[in-house]
């Protein structure tokens, strides 16, 4: 079971600010793939990913208990 946090405009695409997913042992790329199948979130290709508050690479593996955050760069100012 992993917790996925969504920031900024991703929240609107998902309809909430977090999801609990019954996943484990998958890569960030695979996780993104699953989310894209279920939700209309094309911009998931352009976000930063953190696992347990640390910058994550697409090939990193997510384990049960991890907290994944998808953080789209915000441009306004």
């Amino acid at each position, binding site marked *: 079971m992993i917790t996925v946090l969504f920031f*900024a*405009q991703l929240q609107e695409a998902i309809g909430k600010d977090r999801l609990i997913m019954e996943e484990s042992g998958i890569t960030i790329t695979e996780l993104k793939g699953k989310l894209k199948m279920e939700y209309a979130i*094309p911009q998931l290709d*352009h976000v930063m990913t953190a696992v347990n*508050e640390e910058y994550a*690479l697409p090939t990193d593996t997510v384990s049960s208990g991890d907290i994944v955050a998808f953080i789209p760069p915000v*441009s*306004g100012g």
Partner: protein
Amino acid sequence: MKDRYSRQELYKPIGVSGQKKIQSKHVLIIGCGALGTMNAESLVRAGIGRLSIVDRDYVEISNLQRQQLFTEEDCLKQLPKAIAAKEHLLNINSSVTINAYVMDGTSSNLPPLMEDVDLVIDATDNFDIRFVINDLIHQYTIPWIFGSCVGSTGMSYTIVPQETPCLQCLLDATPASGATCDSVGVISPAVQMVVALQQAEALKILVEDDESLRTKLVTFDLWNNMFHTMDIKRAKKNTCPTCGENPIYPKLTYESQTKMEVLCGRNTVQVRSKREVHMEELARRLSEIGTVHQNDFLLSVDYHSFRVVIFKDGRVLIHGTNSIEQARNIYYQLVG
């Protein structure tokens, strides 16, 4: 006036010696909108020695909801933001030297302003210019503090050349588009939070307390009560074209610049950018502004009195103006 900074001198990590340092430093703020005015006011109250402000815009009524310093009168007079800000800042602290530059910061005109600067604060509203700044501050070895906000969210991150990953490391390419205040709005607490994060880092840099610098990227959402930090050490790339071993500063080349040209006799400005456009995402976002028409090759939307046409290859036509300045504003307001 000797008591003026007493509350800052009493704060131990600054003290009397830190206050002297602050008063000897020069900060460059790029952008004078919500983040820019508030950062500027904060530094001027803190007694910064010199402050340079760059901005291309004029004060508009829709700015007043969140942009400090500006008044209804500035808006009626249509003052350039940098000029209006300077005037208010001098009323607050007449001992600060303030340079106001009314211009569109680019890789061509920003370099001279980098000389003699101790710190750059990001108060811009688009990633094109942020990547240019990222290259410049590495070329000139100046720390800078990235900040951005939209809606109730925001982020900040302190970049120190030769120490931390840079913006290029973090975001492999310019984001195709970021949500902008002109498409999804913004509330002032998001601005205040980003400035709080930026200003704390600014004071640490100005008093040379580098050990206290935050080493994480902060993202927050005040409406949803989220506050998230991300350790980004792993993002640093030795091959980074900006901060790696063989820097080429890619955004400082002529080719990489976003170019604007007036199309003769057509009341239209054409924008050519190197950035990728994600049509679905853009269409979804622009539909908040007006009816979007879309086909396989382009999408178009009406915005105020303009018609904006965006092609898949990144080319954009802005109909209804012959002004490059105006077109540039519209471009960044919509595409981000």
